[in-house]
């Protein structure tokens, strides 16, 4: 969306830059995005940085996009399972789509997500890049 909110971006930087999740101290469940209460009922949660490698579960190539992504279209987006079993959704970059398939190894990369034209603010975040393809 044009002109993303700066405070919203700023407060989500730990997640956008380092994939900081919450782990429940009681049952061990990992929550990304972070939650304030685990499904087990516990509110004792600690920060956990998610691993930076995993495998692709499924992907699609999206041709109808919002205003921020017109220059990047089509977007390859998908579901990734990280090495600790936690799943995350995100863009898949630097991929040869015809070689991409479920099970492909991917790594987390740090990339530009939104270049806000009017204010010149650039917003970053995690994306996924195939390894060895």
């Amino acid at each position, binding site marked *: 969306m044009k002109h993303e909110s700066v405070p919203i971006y700023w407060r989500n930087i730990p997640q956008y830059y380092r994939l900081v999740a919450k782990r429940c101290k009681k049952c061990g469940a990992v929550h990304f995005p972070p939650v304030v209460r685990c499904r087990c009922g516990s509110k004792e949660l600690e920060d956990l940085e998610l691993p930076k490698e995993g495998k692709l579960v499924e992907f699609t190539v999206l041709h*109808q996009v919002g*205003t921020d992504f017109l220059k990047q279209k089509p977007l390859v*987006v998908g*579901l990734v399972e990280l090495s600790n079993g936690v*799943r995350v*959704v995100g863009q898949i970059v630097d991929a040869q789509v015809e070689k991409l398939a479920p099970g492909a190894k991917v790594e987390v990369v740090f990339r530009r997500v939104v270049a806000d034209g009017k204010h010149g603010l650039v917003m970053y975040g995690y994306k996924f890049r195939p390894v060895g393809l």
Partner: protein
Amino acid sequence: MKDVYVVGGALHPAGRHYDKNIDDLAAAVLDKAIADAQADIEALFVASSTAELGNKQQLLGVYVLESLGLDKIPVFRIENGDGSGGAAVVAAYHALRAGEYNCVAVVGVDKPNDVLSNQQQDIYATTLDTHFERYFGFTPLSYAALMAKMYLKKYEYKYEDLARWAVLMHAHGAGNPYAYFRRPVKLEDAVNSEVVSEPLRLYDVGPLADGAAAAVLCNNKKKDGPRILSVTTSTNAVGFNARNEYDVLYSLEEAARSALKKAGITPRDIAAAEVHDSFSIFGALALEGLGIVKRGGALAALREGDLPVNLSGGFKARGNILGATGVYQVVELAWQLMGREFKRVEGNYGVVHSMGGVDRVSTVIVVGL
């Protein structure tokens, strides 16, 4: 607890209504529904998904009433994304059941064509998690595509099997005078349409359309209006990344189980269903979630021939009027049971499925004669 009847209704044809403001579009259809019911309304429930983001109007209900010269009537705005319509009917139903009012109106309205198509994508994507899904470029379409891809693989269907959904919807839409598209299409048209997010093609997407629908609900049975037998809304408060399965609508399964039980009917009693097929795959999953076909069986059933689902044409042919759609569905279903504007269905029970986001909230409404 009081019974609740659909006493009056009105629909505005879905389309591109550049000549009307959002409040005027809603007012026109509400006026018709009140005249149809021949009843005074004591409260107005307003369903809209994008009145603020797309049309720059808060407090929409007040401006709708102002347009009709109706003063001092309480207004309640319901926003459950593209499932707002079903949720507004639920709120109205509960108020009537409690005996707080005798007659209320529900009006659903959305005008996505007041903004450009890429801005529509921006706005529709706010039904997703805005910080961790929309921010990265996801839209409801991208998730529908991922679910369709996994469903087709799991049950070994061909894309062609899914494309039959659009063909059926257009066949039904041809009989709905309020539908956006009122012409049949061929399977080859669907199969050869542009890929929008593989495996989904243009014909898998319900086109966003402007429109408004209104229903007047009352405690007393009047004329030949059907009764709302039960309503249930349920949520799926689990992120797309953390879902157990990708070929099921969890919010619908729970809402359907509960609503059918309260109404005392089984899926076999359903003579007509209006389901939330914003994308073809959701139509197939809704058939399964309602228990009309078994899990994985929707596209096989579609291959066998006609199904009494979305006689309106669904989101594909009637159009996706976002938060107004649930109100359209209730009026359409009531009229199908009555044989008004639509061919009368063979049976006395119908269900509406109204969903917000990608399986985040579902409402099931059981209507019976």
